């Protein structure tokens, strides 16, 4: 029983992450009609906002030790972060909370990056074939990755969660189960809550604002909205910026779970496309549903009991689900006819 519950939690947690990544992708798909292979790279850039903030906070004053030497004979460097020097205790708190604080940095930066990419490059590609879009966004993704690599190196850089979220919670005990039967890390629950909030936020933004209404109309019928004389241009820019922000925030909050490295975007790229397509092109609820569906199925497929019957099932479950879904439901879970079919 507890095993099932734990896997369900895992599935929800994964699902939250998948849904969050897919959300931005399906926005650009559905509204702009752009196959954005750089979406994973945006996720990665978000994660590196966290790394950047932490290293900024960690800028250190270096004093050479007069006596001690390193193993290779140069004077030992004594380093103290400036923030601690200037702000004392408060500085340490800032350092401690660098990951959640990075969101504040990520929002303007990702917006800026998103707008710059859309204005500078993507807007020329709305009418171009998907293949061209793939080539240009893929090239862009590589360029962004390599720039990050040349600054931060290729190794993953640890981004610990704040100490109060470090351990795990005895979830089972809350529901009257034996102590320790179902424990789950605090940060993962924070992440689950965070994805729920962001998803709800994006939905209500699209549901309850005029801007959102136009965007939804655009997802339903791009040409008509364009014909209505609405300034689609500016809105497209904002949508792309929004997608970048969502991807970036997902990246920031994921860093304590997955130490970020320059290549992490590519690792998520295929997965996020599968989620979007299984959900149905251009359907936000579809992407979210598919995210959770795939997350939960993947968790259960990884159980030993399942793997013993179907060896290697955990390796392919995502793709298997994608194939079955697309064969049973031609346009994914909630996709509409005619979107991205040519």
């Amino acid at each position, binding site marked *: 029983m507890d095993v099932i519950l734990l896997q369900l939690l895992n599935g929800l947690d994964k699902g939250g992450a998948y849904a969050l990544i897919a959300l931005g992708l399906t926005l650009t798909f559905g509204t702009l009609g752009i196959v954005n292979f750089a979406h994973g790279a945006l996720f990665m850039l978000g994660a590196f906002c966290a790394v950047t903030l932490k290293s900024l906070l960690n800028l250190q004053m270096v004093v050479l030790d007069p006596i001690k030497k390193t193993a290779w004979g140069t004077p030992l460097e004594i380093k103290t972060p400036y923030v601690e020097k200037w702000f004392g205790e408060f500085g340490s708190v800032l350092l401690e909370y660098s990951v959640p604080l990075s969101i504040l940095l990520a929002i303007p930066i990702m917006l800026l990056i998103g707008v710059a990419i859309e204005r500078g490059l993507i807007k020329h590609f709305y009418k171009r074939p998907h293949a061209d879009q793939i080539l240009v966004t893929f090239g862009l993704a590589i360029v962004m990755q390599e720039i990050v690599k040349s600054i931060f190196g290729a190794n993953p850089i640890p981004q610990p969660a704040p100490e109060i979220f470090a351990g795990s919670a005895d979830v089972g005990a809350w529901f009257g189960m034996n102590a320790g039967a179902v424990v789950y890390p605090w940060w993962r629950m924070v992440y689950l809550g965070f994805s729920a909030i962001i998803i709800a936020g994006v939905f209500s933004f699209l549901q309850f604002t005029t801007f959102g209404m136009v965007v939804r109309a655009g997802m339903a019928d791009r040409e008509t909205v364009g014909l209505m004389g609405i300034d689609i241009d500016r809105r497209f820019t904002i949508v792309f910026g929004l997608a970048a922000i969502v991807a970036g925030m997902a990246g920031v909050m994921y860093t304590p779970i997955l130490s970020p490295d320059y290549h992490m975007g590519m690792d998520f790229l295929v997965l996020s496309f599968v989620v979007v397509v299984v959900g149905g092109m251009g359907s936000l609820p579809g992407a979210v549903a598919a995210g959770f569906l795939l997350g939960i199925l993947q968790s259960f497929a990884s159980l030993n009991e399942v793997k013993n019957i179907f060896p*290697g099932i955990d390796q392919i479950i995502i*793709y298997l689900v994608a194939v079955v879904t697309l064969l049973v439901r031609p346009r994914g879970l909630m996709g509409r006819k005619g979107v991205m079919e*040519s």
Partner: protein
Amino acid sequence: MLKNFVNKRDLPVFLGFIAIVLLAPIIMAPLGAGYPDLLQKFAIFGIFAIGFNILFGLTGYLSFGHAAFLGVGSYTAVWTFKLLTVNVVPAIFLSTLMGGLFALLIGVISLRRSGIYFSILTLAFAQMAYNLAYSVLTPITNGETGLQLTLNDSRVIDNMFREVSKTSLPSTDFFGLSMSGFSGFYFCAVVLIICFYISLRIFRSPFGVMLKAVKSNQERMSYTGLNTRPYTLAAFVISGMFAGLAGGLMAVTDPLAGAERMQWTVGGEVVLMTILGGAGTLIGPVLGAVTIKYFENIFSSLNDSILNSFFSFMPEPMQHVFTAVAGLFVGEGWHLTLGALFVVIVVFLPGGLMEGIGRIGKLFRRGGDDGDKKEPAAKFATPAE
């Protein structure tokens, strides 16, 4: 006679292609690419891209799963070497066949959908093949290490007809002609020319026009009395056979088959090659394959000392600056250059490298007169609204 063989209009292109391929060792030498392995890769990936172009360039169906057929071709070839003979003829025949068979299987299912849904289906199949080959199928694929020849291989046919060494591994051959080094390249080159010729015939045939019609307007096609599914499936299987053949040739020139050949990045690479060179053009895919493989092998090998000697004609401080700047784009930075190249090409040459060549050609024909800008440039300038 020749008129039946090649269309008059295509004759110069075809002869030029043959000449360039056969002279490649000489042409490529000044570029640092005149060594057998890279030339073989040019030819093999050229074949892969030519085949892919028959599907993607003509029908517009974008498959991300062709790496699976490449991998299947390689595994088939190595198993043929292990079980039957190191003569490459059966291996090439069987790997093409297996590539086609797998393509038939995957194509029948994937072609039930179109657009991005089709792309994701092919991607899903390739990734399943890759993940399984890497892990649970290790008894067949030898997993991460890759399938290699061993001294214990049965090699039934070889054992019947020739002396089999018990101490050293055999090398693949074509009736005695070694498949490594330049002879290996020329073998691949001949296959490439044959494949190019087949592709040329398909492009110019009624079947080719039908495939273009699929890309242009599938609905009109079916109201015109044509069943689109077998056409797309045939294109898919043909391109799968090309991929299987390319995979087989990879094993022929270097008898090892690894699972990573099936990964989506390899399938993505052939997509990039085709678009980069110019999808739907005859020579473009080969050009794209050569470009990407050149970057991967030559740009990645440039290091600081090579750069320094390259810039040695400059005064020293300038030499250092140039080395430092250029160093960002070569060696470990070769990916950056490739990525930037993708962006630049697709922005300025929507038709790929072939469009660039076409424009240069036009420029020469006009004697440097750059009168009207060509229509593709206008296409790019078309604003989003």
